[in-house]
């Protein structure tokens, strides 16, 4: 409990690790997660540190592992992500892992390269067959046309005299050439255009699309290709055409000159494709086997390499001693854990078989240690709420233990409904029951995780809502009449006609027999029927909010004494805490007092004379109580006294601490002045003696402080101190007023919740219930469904979130700023369990 209230006591310790056993010791510490390491060579670059080569080796292994994982994923083999937790490998075993990995990489690389080569081959062969098949159609078509002499119709200047030109070309030695191949479909248009421009029409391009999709060897995406055949005249143009083909990344294949040749090639291709298919199949099988074998141990390797890398990172933080025989590490460690730390080091030395043991040495320090607050699964949620505001300063009072009760309570004040509370509690209870279920725990859904992490908070909130629901007597906006109402209509209206004729009946508690005493728990159910229910509840809830708020804030102020006493700042008790508490209680404490006074001293009989507290409170500030009837004798005098105290506590708060500190700081100087004073006026000797004694006392406490911190030479700056105190004063005094008003949100939200649930009942359920035929039964089913859905989505989730938010604000702003500074640093131990555990987070995939 003490640890939860203040956080763990920490110390700075030096670890002397023998260079032989350092690795094992750190590994042992990593498994336990006891200590936080400090960087002892902050000025050294990352690549100039001692163990850079080892880290590079780890990175190399990670690279290979990433490659392996990618290949395994590509092959669609499931990774066995088991709950094994292998320890970091010994340095001597690293080499074997490295070798295994490298062998695997080489093997995989070869096989995949082979596979890719085969696939490329296969693709080329299929492309070739496609080309041959399609170009045959071109040739056949042109062959059919040839007798008609329209072959060169597209050629403008060959048109005139085709035969002559053809023969003259032949005479010039120009040969008809063919280039055929495949090109991406998207590029064919640009290709055709450029061909036309460059060759000025000395070519014929015919093309046709392939029906199937072929896989692009570069990207692996299926793409549509087009088979083309270019016929051209002459070598010069042939050269150009080839260049253009290169430019558009065409796949060119030799064009068979005769039909027989074509048939031969097609035959040859068919057998080669079949052979390739079998070879490819075998290769794939082999690859799969290799990958399956690798996938069995890849998880262990990933964890081991990660741990190893972490260890070397830590070793890089250590410094070497003069003899170079041992490493020195500085760690923050909880004092209670030092025996465990010793044991871990012994274990590490034993494992590595070192002759000289590694040991721990506590060193004094002036640095502020990090804050460690140990939590369990119940308290961690509440601690997170506090930490989200700010991690506590070292050994400061931690608001979390109080938050465990106040947070769900303030939430429930705003969420007071028995039915909704039960649903919420049951939901949370289900999560708590199945908290060890792996499916619930390891989900990736962030929203779900948020709820799951806060399951104990939700459970508490639900339970408290049940309680406040009982007090408000609200269950889905209806009241429960468990004990029987204390009010009776019978006593008021004996005549049955009165009841029949009047729409509204008034019950006067002054008439005997109408009010038979208060309802045993919470609010009387008869209020649910009353027309002035809202007026009654508003007055009740508003007063309740103010009372709760003032109590909550005063509690916060009281908690600050723990800090003042613990940090040996006794003067804060008189100069900060006391004026703060007086200010708060004299003004708002008195308001609470008046509320209680009114409740206790005015009953139904003299309710007509009951005064307005608001008027009295305003008059108190204006100091004029003559106009209204006093609540009790001597009220005016007391009120003036309280206001004066409150007003006087402000300058004390504003000036007290800075002036005292100033005086304390220049104490020696003042003492000399007292002596001079002494010489002149000897009769004040006693006074000076007292002052000196006081100084001594302060000095003692001061030296106490400085013994824990070696040199405490913080410069005292009066202006700085004064400014801080002025800000604090203004914040506190104005804050008291605005914070009290802020607690009225308890009233507002509870009102909103109650009204919303009532509206839902009136607009949905009541309509369904009004139908009293047999049809109504069937009608009620969808109506209830709608009611249930709206209840859960709006009233539970939305309203719940809003109430949560407001409860959060009341804790962070109104409660915690009274005592909690939250400027600490969280203790983050070196622990393997904090390393990311899934593959995707590693960046390996």
């Amino acid at each position, binding site marked *: 409990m003490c640890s939860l209230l203040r956080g763990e006591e920490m110390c700075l310790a030096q670890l002397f690790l023998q260079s032989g056993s350092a690795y094992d010791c750190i590994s042992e510490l990593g498994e336990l997660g006891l200590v936080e390491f400090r960087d002892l060579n902050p000025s050294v*670059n*990352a690549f100039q540190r001692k163990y850079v080569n080892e880290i590079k080796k780890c990175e190399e292994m990670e690279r290979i592992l990433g490659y392996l994982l990618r290949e395994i994923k590509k092959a669609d083999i499931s990774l066995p992500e088991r709950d094994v937790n292998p320890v970091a490998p010994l340095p001597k075993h690293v080499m074997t892992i490295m070798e295994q990995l490298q062998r695997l990489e080489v093997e995989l690389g070869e096989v995949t390269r082979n596979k890719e080569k085969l696939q490329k081959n296969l693709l080329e062969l299929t492309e070739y067959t496609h080309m041959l098949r399609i170009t045959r159609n071109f040739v056949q078509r042109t062959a059919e046309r040839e007798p008609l002499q329209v072959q060169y119709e597209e050629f403008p200047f060959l048109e005139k005299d085709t035969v002559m030109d053809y023969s003259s070309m032949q005479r010039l030695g120009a040969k008809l050439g063919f280039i055929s191949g495949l090109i991406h479909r998207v590029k064919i248009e640009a290709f055709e255009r450029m061909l036309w421009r*460059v060759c000025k029409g000395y070519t014929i391009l015919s093309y046709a699309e392939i029906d199937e999709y072929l896989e692009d060897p570069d990207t692996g995406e299926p793409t549509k290709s087009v088979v083309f055949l270019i016929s051209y005249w002459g070598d010069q143009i042939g050269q150009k055409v080839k260049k253009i083909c290169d430019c558009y990344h065409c796949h060119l294949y030799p064009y068979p000159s005769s039909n027989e040749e074509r048939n031969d090639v097609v035959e040859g291709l068919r057998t080669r494709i079949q052979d390739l298919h079998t070879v490819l199949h075998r290769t794939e099988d082999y690859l799969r086997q290799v990958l399956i074998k690798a996938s069995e141990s890849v998880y262990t390797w990933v964890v081991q390499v990660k741990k190893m890398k972490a260890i070397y990172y830590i070793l890089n933080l250590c410094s070497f001693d003069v003899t170079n025989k041992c490493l020195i590490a500085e760690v923050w460690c909880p004092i209670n854990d030092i025996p465990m730390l010793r044991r871990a080091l012994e274990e590490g030395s034993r494992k590595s078989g070192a002759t000289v043991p590694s040991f721990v040495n506590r060193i004094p320090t002036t640095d502020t240690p990090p804050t460690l607050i140990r939590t369990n699964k119940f308290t961690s949620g509440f601690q997170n709420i506090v930490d989200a505001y700010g991690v506590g300063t070292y050994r400061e009072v931690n608001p979390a233990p109080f938050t465990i009760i106040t947070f769900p309570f303030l939430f429930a004040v705003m969420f007071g409904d028995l039915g909704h509370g039960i649903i919420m509690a049951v939901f949370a209870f289900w999560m708590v029951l199945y908290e060890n279920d792996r499916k619930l725990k390891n989900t990736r859904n962030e929203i779900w995780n948020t709820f799951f992490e806060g399951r104990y908070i939700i459970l508490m909130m639900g339970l408290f809502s049940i309680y406040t629901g009982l007090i408000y007597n609200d269950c889905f906006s209806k009241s429960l009449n468990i004990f029987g109402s204390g009010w009776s209509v019978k006593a008021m209206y004996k005549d049955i006609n009165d009841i029949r004729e009047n729409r509204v009946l008034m019950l006067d508690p002054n008439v005997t027999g109408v009010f038979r005493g208060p309802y045993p728990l919470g609010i009387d159910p008869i209020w649910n029927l009353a027309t002035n229910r809202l007026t009654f509840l508003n007055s009740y809830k508003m007063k309740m909010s103010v009372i709760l708020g003032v109590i909550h804030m005063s509690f916060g102020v009281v908690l600050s004494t723990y800090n003042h006493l613990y940090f040996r700042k006794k003067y804060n008790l008189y100069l900060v805490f006391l004026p703060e508490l007086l200010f708060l209680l004299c003004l708002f404490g008195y308001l609470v007092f008046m509320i209680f006074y009114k409740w206790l001293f005015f009953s139904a009989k003299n309710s007509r004379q009951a005064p307005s507290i608001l008027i009295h409170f305003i008059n108190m500030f204006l100091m004029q109580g003559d106009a209204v009837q006093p609540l009790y004798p001597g009220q005016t005098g007391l009120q003036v006294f309280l206001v004066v105290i409150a007003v006087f506590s402000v300058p004390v708060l504003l000036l007290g601490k800075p002036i005292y500190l100033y005086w304390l700081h220049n104490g020696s100087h003042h003492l000399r002045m007292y002596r001079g004073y002494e010489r002149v006026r000897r009769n004040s000797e006693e006074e000076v003696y007292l002052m000196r004694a006081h100084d001594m006392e302060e000095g003692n406490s001061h030296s106490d402080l400085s013994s824990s911190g070696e040199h405490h030479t913080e410069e005292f700056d009066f202006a700085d101190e004064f400014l801080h105190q002025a800000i604090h004063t203004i914040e506190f005094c104005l804050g008291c007023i605005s914070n009290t008003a802020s607690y009225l949100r308890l009233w507002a939200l509870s009102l909103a919740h109650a009204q919303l649930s009532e509206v839902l009942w009136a607009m949905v359920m009541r309509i369904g219930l009004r139908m009293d035929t047999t049809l109504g039964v069937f009608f009620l089913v969808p109506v209830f469904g709608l009611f249930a859905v709206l209840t859960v989505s709006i009233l539970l989730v939305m309203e719940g979130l809003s109430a949560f938010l407001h409860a959060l604000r009341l804790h962070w702003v109104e409660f915690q700023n009274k005592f909690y500074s939250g400027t600490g640093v969280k203790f983050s131990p070196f622990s393997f369990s904090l390393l990311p555990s899934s593959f995707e987070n590693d960046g390996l995939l």
Partner: protein
Amino acid sequence: MAVCQELSFNVDHGYLEGLVRGMKAGILTQTDYHNLSQCDTLEDMKLHLQSTDYGKLLSSSEEDLTVSLVDSKLKEILVTEFSCLRTNALPPLSTFLDYITYSYMIDNVVMLITGALKHRDVAELLPRCHPLGAFDQMAAVGIARTPSELYSAILVDTPLAQFFQDAVSESNLDEMEAEILRNKLYKAYLESFHSFCKNLGGATKDIMCPVLEFEADRRAFIITVNSFGTDLSGADRSTLYPSCGKLYPEGLQLLAKAEDHEQVKAVANCYPDFKVIFEDPESGSDCKTLEDRFFEQEVKMNTLAFLQQFHFGVFYSYIKLKEQESRNIIWIAECVTQRQKSKIHNYIPIFKGTN
């Protein structure tokens, strides 16, 4: 153009502007450069670059680390980022981004022509082209023998066709002609880009026009300085000067008449922006080349683009800054591999204040 572009800017381009501003945060800082320049080997540099936004860029490669590999990887990452921006862009931003690539296209075309003149294999030249300026017809550039053939056969389908109006000529392509072609294309390109930005109006105009004007003036100076000692006459030169800069028209006329470096300096003295650049290097501790000074000035102008919102200038500036960063990394890498530690600090830092 709408009167209040700021109101509707985010509808189409807000996401991309946010993206590019996020990417800008990944530009290496002074401390990164400091750490990089302390490296002894490329392996060290790789280790350090891992802690920056480049991340695992270099670590995934199995081959040996060389400067050219680093260079190609850096280009690769730039192209990936750019194509991400380009594919998500809507007009007129998409046109704007296309304009950025045209300058790289021009460089690629000229490089391929000169390569073809030296009878280099196209397959050997293609990997050396800047990937930002890649286009389909690139490999066929070597076929052309004259600029008009180049235009009518190959480039007419590319976006570069619009810049060819002045550049078409029947003279045979030689090295000099290729260089003149480059400058003519650049002139047309810059003027077109300038008028495009001007038409866009708003903050884009305010940011981009000065940057492009500076670019135009820089080209004018560089052309003049490079033409000394060649047979390019003053009149020929003046046809190459882009006319959208601040030097137009008086400064350009003076530059056309300039005969030596001193006269160029005299011209620059009339303009405060360029006076700084042409000042004698004694003022600085180490002598920087004219090119470096221009680069420095360009970086300064580009960083200013990020001060304003709702304009396209950030895209241009980001690409240019990233390019400068690649140049810096390559410079450091070269210095590291050649053990020239004394020159390692000659890189041009970007965002000096952000360390």
